[in-house]
């Protein structure tokens, strides 16, 4: 049996497993929706409602959004891109900050600065995302004299620097609040500490080799696992920061739908949750593919089921 055939099989298995998981989650979500009181379903049984919601999902009935009077996909495309900016920037900043900070903290652990970084990150990690984003808003208004809300970002006159500044506050709130960043930083630190004790690493240091290259290569796997494990938290955080910074993304759409009185916009809600779940499953799939590439033993393990 050649190696490429094995990887192909494992990929098919993986994709079908993720698809099944996605579909089951959506069915569960449609079931939960039947409990929401709605004037258009007063005399309808829960089962009929459940089947109605499933029909929307399976037959792709996303032509019309009740709130926006537009195609559901159009609404999701318009808002979703801003959510995607937040997610991508958050992941990028986590990686960009974790690598140097964890490296410095472990390799120079007796320095005051390293201890200070460690303690500050721990203290910040216990601040909730909501609180952190409100405090960032206060600081921006008081110190920089601007209100970092979405209108300022999407306004025609906004320059690239202003946009970057306005984008950075919600992103920093998501990654620093609720311990998302600290948890990734902590696992990276553990991994570097482990690498430091390995004999091959001591050998490299003794030969005068560059430790950075080996450490970065060593922590990639840990970073991927811990960031992908935090993706659900990131998405929950995005809902919060979008409301605080009036960011016109998917999170704001969800809250709008739930706040809507009378008949709810179920097609829009189902489509948004489907998009969020696709993001979660896509990140999980990317994680497994990258780990397989980094460590081929894992792909063999997947086929044999060990």
């Amino acid at each position: 049996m050649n190696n490429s055939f094995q990887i192909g099989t494992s990929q098919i298995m993986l994709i079908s497993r993720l698809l099944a998981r996605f579909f089951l989650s959506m069915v569960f979500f449609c079931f939960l929706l039947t409990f929401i009181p709605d004037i258009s379903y007063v005399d309808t049984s829960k089962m009929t409602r459940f089947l109605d919601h499933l029909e929307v999902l399976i037959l792709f009935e996303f032509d019309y959004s009740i709130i926006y009077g537009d195609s559901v996909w159009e609404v999701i495309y318009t808002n979703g891109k801003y959510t995607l900016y937040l997610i991508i920037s958050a992941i990028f900043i986590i990686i960009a900050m974790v690598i140097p900070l964890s490296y410095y903290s472990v390799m120079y652990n007796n320095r005051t600065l390293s201890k200070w970084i460690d303690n500050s990150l721990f203290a910040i990690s216990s601040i909730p995302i909501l609180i952190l984003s409100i405090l960032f808003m206060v600081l921006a208004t008081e110190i920089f004299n601007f209100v970092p809300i979405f209108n300022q970002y999407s306004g025609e006159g906004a320059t690239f620097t202003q946009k970057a500044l306005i984008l950075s506050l919600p992103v920093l709130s998501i990654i620093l609040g609720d311990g998302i960043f600290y948890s990734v930083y902590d696992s990276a630190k553990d991994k570097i500490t482990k690498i430091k004790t390995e004999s091959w690493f001591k050998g490299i240091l003794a030969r005068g080799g560059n430790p950075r290259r080996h450490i970065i290569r060593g922590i990639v796997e840990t970073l991927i696992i811990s960031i992908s494990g935090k993706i659900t938290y990131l998405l929950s955080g995005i809902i919060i920061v979008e409301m605080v910074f009036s960011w016109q993304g998917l999170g704001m759409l969800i809250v709008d739908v739930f706040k809507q009185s009378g008949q709810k916009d179920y097609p829009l809600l189902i489509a948004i949750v489907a998009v969020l779940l696709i993001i979660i499953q896509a990140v999980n799939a990317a994680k497994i593919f990258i780990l397989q590439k980094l460590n081929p033993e894992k792909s063999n393990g997947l086929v044999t089921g060990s």
Partner: protein
Amino acid sequence: MKQPIKKYFKPQNIQLLIGISVLISLLTANTLWFSQHNPMISRGPSDIPPQIEIFQSLLYTPDVSTYIVEDDTWDSWGNSGGRRISLSSDSPLISNLPITAIQTGSDYEYHPRFKANDISDLELTESPEGMTLTDGSIQWMPGEHQIGTFPVSLRIETDSTTYEVDYTLRVTKEFYPLGTNERGNSLSGLLIAGSKWTLIPGMIAASIAISFGLLMGVFSNYYGSHVASMFDGFSDLIESIPALIIIFIIAVASQFNMYLIMAGVGLILIPKVYAVIKSTVNQFVENQFVESALEIGFEKKVVYWREIVWYNCKSDMISLTTYCITFSILIEITISYLNLGVQDPDISWGLILLEGRDSILSGEYWMVVFPAILISISILGLTLLGSGAKQFLDPKFK
């Protein structure tokens, strides 16, 4: 032999101490609220900044207007008849801004420090009754009847120019240490009242999560792989959808009933508790002392509940309980902020933050800063309590 005091300053003891202090504070706030109820949230003038001096100077920039008086003429009533040119809303002449909100019967003192060195004369041109200017310092003690707003005008003469600095003093009958909101409610009273949605709802969520998670964690090992895979499937299902979205559904479905929402939070936390207990049970089942106990003839049930759960999951359960309470407080604050939780006229920390959001633009930062600090301290304290208690109870850390 006397133990050295240093022995007690272990990190886990300090964590435990901070955590217990926060817990006692929350309990006291809850007791205060349930014993006094509405009178605590006194109604007064709206938007009063914190009356504790240091907080007021940090969180509030008073409206101080500075003018240049061009034509220095005065009418028989003592009013300036000259042309006044407004310089700027923030004082370009004075480096320290005055305190503008005080209580009756308290001492008021303002000693303005000037940026210019050539001050030749200083005079109070408009002031409430009893206010004096002595050695460059404005002093006053508002009497019981002096409640309301009082304009104060200070005339400053330099060698070349005459300036006038105007500001308004607000005197209240009651003392508002943390200020009031736009409805005139005392913020300190609101914060105490909001604490009622912390421990009790948290305990509801924690009791559901811990009891079901514990049973599932033990049964998954006790009854074998079929039961374990059933529980794993349940956990996967709950965890596959972001928690906040499930909470939104429960909130809307329960018509914003916080107790039902907290029961839902408990349900969402079951997988977390289940995973921790399951891993601890699996780890101990393979230990030699468990195998020996079974071989000696102890009942399997007794070994599981006494040897594994009682002696070895205790520390996990304590830290998980504080985690569940912390999580439920965060959820309550978040959904109330999003207007999907506690509804007005009820009070919650999340609602206070929501009300204060608009005041950020007008510079009334105390409306969000105090609740934010209080929430952060509570969360940090409960997290430290969990971590400290785990280390205190777990024999591995001793």
